[in-house]
Every structure is written in structure tokens, then in C-alpha cells.
């Protein structure tokens, strides 16, 4: 490939970390109620961590989370937040080349990618999706040795390496016929010139302005009430898909919100007091998930009290952080 006209950024974006001995960010500690939120947010937490940034400011997106009656917000850092906080410009890549070529050229371009892949080929998911279940998930490749068919990648809460048949499977580079469309790929460019110093208080205000005017836990409660009807059909697999979209996203949002409000206490004095009620929401969602899972097995379940505690705690937390932000 002729690369003579390409101008990589002055500071190329590179992850130097090694899978051996890699220490995930503290928000991914297994002792937390919800050590993982969703693949995309978890990926960004680790990517920022690897790049030497504090990922907590990127969690401002949790302030505007909502439940729309069907699902909780799939929480993701807003591109404009990543650009202003860290100088990272994120956009869909122009995927005119095969995915493996785009990823390989990333180091030459001085960029990183997020790319959707099939979890079937990710060895870090041994015991869950690896060679067991076809599952869409997002990774960031951090280095590739194409001739040796080896790639390091960030996924969920860690940094890993895959090789051989898994390399072929991820990129469709073996002899198998390609039956799927090309994946969605984002390119991440290093643009430190776009960093806006002291922008976090502005971002807090923007997310608070976008937050629902009422309490999203009330809509989650309605959704739970509806689910207690169809969950009785006995489909445990459907319960888990629903629980991921509603209960887990709510619980993880609340737990990460607790970290975020503690972080902004310096610029929004008093905000840290909201951490305790948000952590209550996180632990109560855990309890609710365990209890609701009994419904598909034919048992009656009452989560009224749990939802009441969650609703009150969320409101308390939001009132505190809103007042602290002025």
C-alpha cells in the first residue's frame, strides 16, 4: 500500500501495555456489585486507563441515563466528551478495506479502532462465549503481528492476546466463505489540540440538562411489572437478555455514577454525598436480578420494596448532585 501521502498525527495513538500482569482499572474490580456495564463502555474505561488518562470524567454520560419503558440507556461515553476531555476524536472509519487491513494500518496511521467482532473467537471469554456462543461485542486491537497471526486486544475489563485459528476467525481470513457484512468500525485519532481545559463542569451541566425530568426508576418499575407477566412463560434465556438491558445497565450506571459524583466533588461541592444512594441502587438491582430470575422457574416474586428503595435512592442521589452542580 502506498502510504506516501499519509500524515500520521504528531503524537500517534498507541497502547504500550502488555497482557501479562495487566491491571484493569479499579471500576472493573471483581468485588464491585457490577464489575462490568457493557462491552463498549468497559472498553473505553480500559482504553483510557491504558492511555494514561483517568476514565472517570468520561462517566459523565451516566448523569443523563434513562429508561424508555423497554430498555435502560446503553451507556456510552459521548464522542464530544471524549474529544473535549481527552483530545480523542472518535468517528466511524471509512471501511473500504478488509477489516484486518484497516487494523494493521492503524499503527501506520497513528490511530486506534473499536471494532465489532464475534465473541466466539475471543479466548478471554473462555467459559462464556468462546467457542460456545456467537455474540457481537466490541474490542480495540492494540497490536498485530499479521504474519504470525497474533493480535493483542482490549475487551471488557482486560487486555488479552489471541492467535492462530482465533485470528483467522475474527477477521474471516481463513478459507471459510464470508457470509456476514463488514463490522462497524470506529477510528480514534489523537487530537490533543481539541482538549478544552476545565471543561468537566460544563459537561456535567450538559448531561444534567439532558437527564429525564422525572425518575427513570419509575419506568423501570413499570417495565419490571410488565415482565413479571411474560417471564412466567419460563424462558430463562430471554430473562437474561432482558435483565442485561434493564437491570444490569441500571445497576452498573448507578455504581459508576457513584464514582463520578465523588470525582466531581471538587468542582461541585457536596456532590460526593450522592455516592451512597447511588450505590444503594446498584446493590438493590443485584438483589432484584436474583429474585426476578425465579419467575421463569414458576415461582411468585415480590420486588415492590426493592423498587421502592431504588426509586427513592435514585431521586435522592440526583437531587444531591443536581443541587451541588447548581
Amino acid at each position: 500500500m502506498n502510504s506516501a501521502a499519509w500524515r500520521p498525527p504528531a503524537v500517534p495513538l498507541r497502547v504500550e501495555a502488555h497482557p501479562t500482569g495487566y491491571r484493569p482499572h479499579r471500576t472493573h474490580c471483581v468485588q464491585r456489585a457490577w464489575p462490568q456495564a457493557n462491552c463498549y463502555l468497559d472498553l473505553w474505561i480500559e482504553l483510557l486507563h491504558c492511555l494514561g488518562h483517568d476514565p472517570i470524567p468520561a462517566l459523565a454520560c451516566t448523569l443523563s441515563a434513562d429508561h424508555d419503558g423497554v430498555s435502560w440507556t446503553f451507556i456510552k461515553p459521548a464522542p464530544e466528551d471524549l474529544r473535549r476531555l481527552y483530545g480523542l476524536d472518535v468517528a466511524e472509519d471509512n471501511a473500504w478495506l478488509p477489516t484486518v487491513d484497516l487494523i494493521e494500518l492503524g499503527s501506520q496511521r497513528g490511530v486506534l479502532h473499536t471494532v465489532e467482532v464475534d465473541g466466539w473467537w475471543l479466548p478471554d471469554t473462555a467459559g462464556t462465549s468462546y467457542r460456545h456462543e456467537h455474540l457481537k461485542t466490541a474490542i480495540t486491537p492494540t497490536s498485530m503481528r499479521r504474519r504470525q497471526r497474533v493480535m493483542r486486544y482490549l475487551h471488557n475489563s482486560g487486555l488479552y492476546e489471541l492467535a492462530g485459528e482465533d485470528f483467522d476467525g475474527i477477521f474471516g481470513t481463513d478459507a471459510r466463505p464470508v457470509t456476514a457484512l463488514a463490522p462497524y468500525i470506529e477510528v480514534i485519532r489523537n487530537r490533543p489540540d481539541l482538549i478544552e481545559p476545565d471543561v468537566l463542569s460544563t459537561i456535567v451541566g450538559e448531561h444534567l440538562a439532558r437527564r429525564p425530568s422525572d425518575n427513570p426508576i419509575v419506568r423501570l418499575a413499570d417495565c419490571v411489572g410488565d415482565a413479571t407477566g411474560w417471564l412466567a412463560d419460563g424462558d430463562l434465556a430471554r430473562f437474561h437478555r432482558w435483565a442485561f438491558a434493564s437491570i444490569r445497565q441500571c445497576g452498573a450506571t448507578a455504581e459508576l455514577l457513584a464514582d463520578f459524583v465523588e470525582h466531581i466533588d471538587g468542582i461541585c461541592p457536596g456532590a460526593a454525598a450522592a455516592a451512597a444512594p447511588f450505590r444503594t441502587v446498584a446493590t438493590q438491582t443485584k438483589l432484584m436480578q436474583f429474585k426476578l430470575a425465579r419467575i421463569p422457574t414458576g415461582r411468585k416474586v415480590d420486588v415492590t420494596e426493592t423498587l421502592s428503595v431504588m426509586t427513592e435512592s435514585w431521586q435522592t442521589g440526583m437531587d444531591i448532585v443536581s443541587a451541588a452542580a447548581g
Partner: protein
Amino acid sequence: MRETIQSVLADHGRMNVDPRQIDTEDDLYEFGLTSHASVNVMLALEDEFDVEFPDEVLKKSTFSSIQSIEAVVAELIKTRG
């Protein structure tokens, strides 16, 4: 009881190790026990031992080790009489 718990974990825990090959105090979440799998483990334990975990033990730490599960289930069986 321990063998039954290990068997439940082997069938439903979807961890990256054989639960019969680890120490009873080892952290199961470190071995890949997910939120999803812990729910299935809870349901299977209730079936196997004919117990119902009360709200106060329906928390992550209850399912964090074989030792912890064993202690909670033993107490539930004792209370049941």
C-alpha cells in the same frame, strides 16, 4: 454438600476452571463467574438443596466462593429443620 455445590458450579458457573480443582476459599469471580452465571448457580442451588435464599443473602458475596455458598446453604438447611 461440597460435591453437590461443585457439581452445580461445574454445570452452571461457566468458569474458566474446574470448580473441583480449586480451593474452597478461592474467589469464583476471579475465575470468570459472571453476574449472568451467578443467577443460574443460585437457581440450581435452590433446586438441588430445596431451599430459598432469603433477601439478606441474595448478594454477590454469597456466591463468591465455595466456602461461602456452603456456609449459607448449611444455615438454610439447619433453619429448615
